[in-house]
């Protein structure tokens, strides 16, 4: 039996693919136009753009909830997809709170704020999703080799050490604000954790993993890596004081939401396509 190709899955979710594509093109054109006008005169429109693109995260999150149900909430795939969807919705929640501060309170976004509940919550959701993905891709099978065991130790270790040197070396502790300390450590370490688990899932299974489920799985890993690059860039720019609303980092988040949304739609399409296959 030949594997189900991407084209065979598209017909199952044409509307969602079209909607995602149209939103992506429209918001990209707006972004390019705003930046064509320059930064100084466009603060308000950049804020509007920065609070609009989360629509992709909401679309992906709601789609993911339905797709998880089709795979079954009790299955590892269903649980992984469910937590990716929750992660996207939590990101959207965090962005909504930030936008509220910008537009209605006309204030600088405090740190920590209610929005961090969404952003930090999404990091936890992605960690849980990655663990389910790791289990689903047969880590219990591939980890049996010495190389597999070495990878399981080395990948998270390298990423955690790298993130420590980038963001936490020489950190000044202010014990009067314990929540800030938790978030300052939680963001970089949590993000390094979900991406290292996802990379471990990919690398440990890449010599064996083929078939119909390989492509949607790879798509999901790419989405997570892009999310990580966006998170990493945000922390880097925020620490350096170079982050601004509606800038390149916001565009990166927009792209990573789009990829995650497409990956979740793909998982929905492949479920139906598998069952539609002839004997």
């Amino acid at each position: 039996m030949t594997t189900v190709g991407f084209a065979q899955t598209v017909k199952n979710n044409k509307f969602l693919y079209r909607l995602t594509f149209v939103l992506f093109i429209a918001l990209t054109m707006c972004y390019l136009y705003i930046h064509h006008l320059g930064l100084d005169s466009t603060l308000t429109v950049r804020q509007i753009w920065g609070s609009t693109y989360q629509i992709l995260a909401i679309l992906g999150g709601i789609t993911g909830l339905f797709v998880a149900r089709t795979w079954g909430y009790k299955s590892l795939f269903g649980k992984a997809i469910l937590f990716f969807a929750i992660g996207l919705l939590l990101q959207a929640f965090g962005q909504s709170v930030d936008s509220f501060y910008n537009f209605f309170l006309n204030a600088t976004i405090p740190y920590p704020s209610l929005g961090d509940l969404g952003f930090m919550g999404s990091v936890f959701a992605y960690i849980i999703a990655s663990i389910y993905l790791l289990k689903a891709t047969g880590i219990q099978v591939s980890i049996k080799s010495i190389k597999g065991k070495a990878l399981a130790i080395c990948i998270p270790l390298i990423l955690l050490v790298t993130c420590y040197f980038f963001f936490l070396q020489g950190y000044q502790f202010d014990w009067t604000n314990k929540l800030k300390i938790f978030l300052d450590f939680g963001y970089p370490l949590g993000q390094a954790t979900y991406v290292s688990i996802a990379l471990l899932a990919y690398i440990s299974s890449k010599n064996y993993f083929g078939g119909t489920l390989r492509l949607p799985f790879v798509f999901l890993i790419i989405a997570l890596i892009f999310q990580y690059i966006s998170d990493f860039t945000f922390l880097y720019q925020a620490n350096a004081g170079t982050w601004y609303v509606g800038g390149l980092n916001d565009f990166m988040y927009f792209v990573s939401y789009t990829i995650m949304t497409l990956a979740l739609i793909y998982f929905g399409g492949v479920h139906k396509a598998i069952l539609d296959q002839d004997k």
Partner: protein
Amino acid sequence: MNNYEHIASEIIKYQVKIIGSVVAIGLAEKVKGLSVTNPKNVTVAISGEPKKVINELVGQCEFLWGNLGVLECKDASEKLLGLLSSNEIPDRLK
């Protein structure tokens, strides 16, 4: 259930855990000579040549996962294979 039906049941249960019962049982029922008599407990009945049926079931896992699917089937049936003599073991599980 006989040994082959137990093996098929274990393989399907393993897949149910990962991809859910709809896809796992749906694909298993596409194998000629295999029927899932109780989807809840994943009890199966094999009619016809059992080794061929198991080989086809492994093929369905391969369709989903590539070689990983074959490894998963071997992992799922590892304990039960010990109950069979070497010439009774289906080729795809050797």
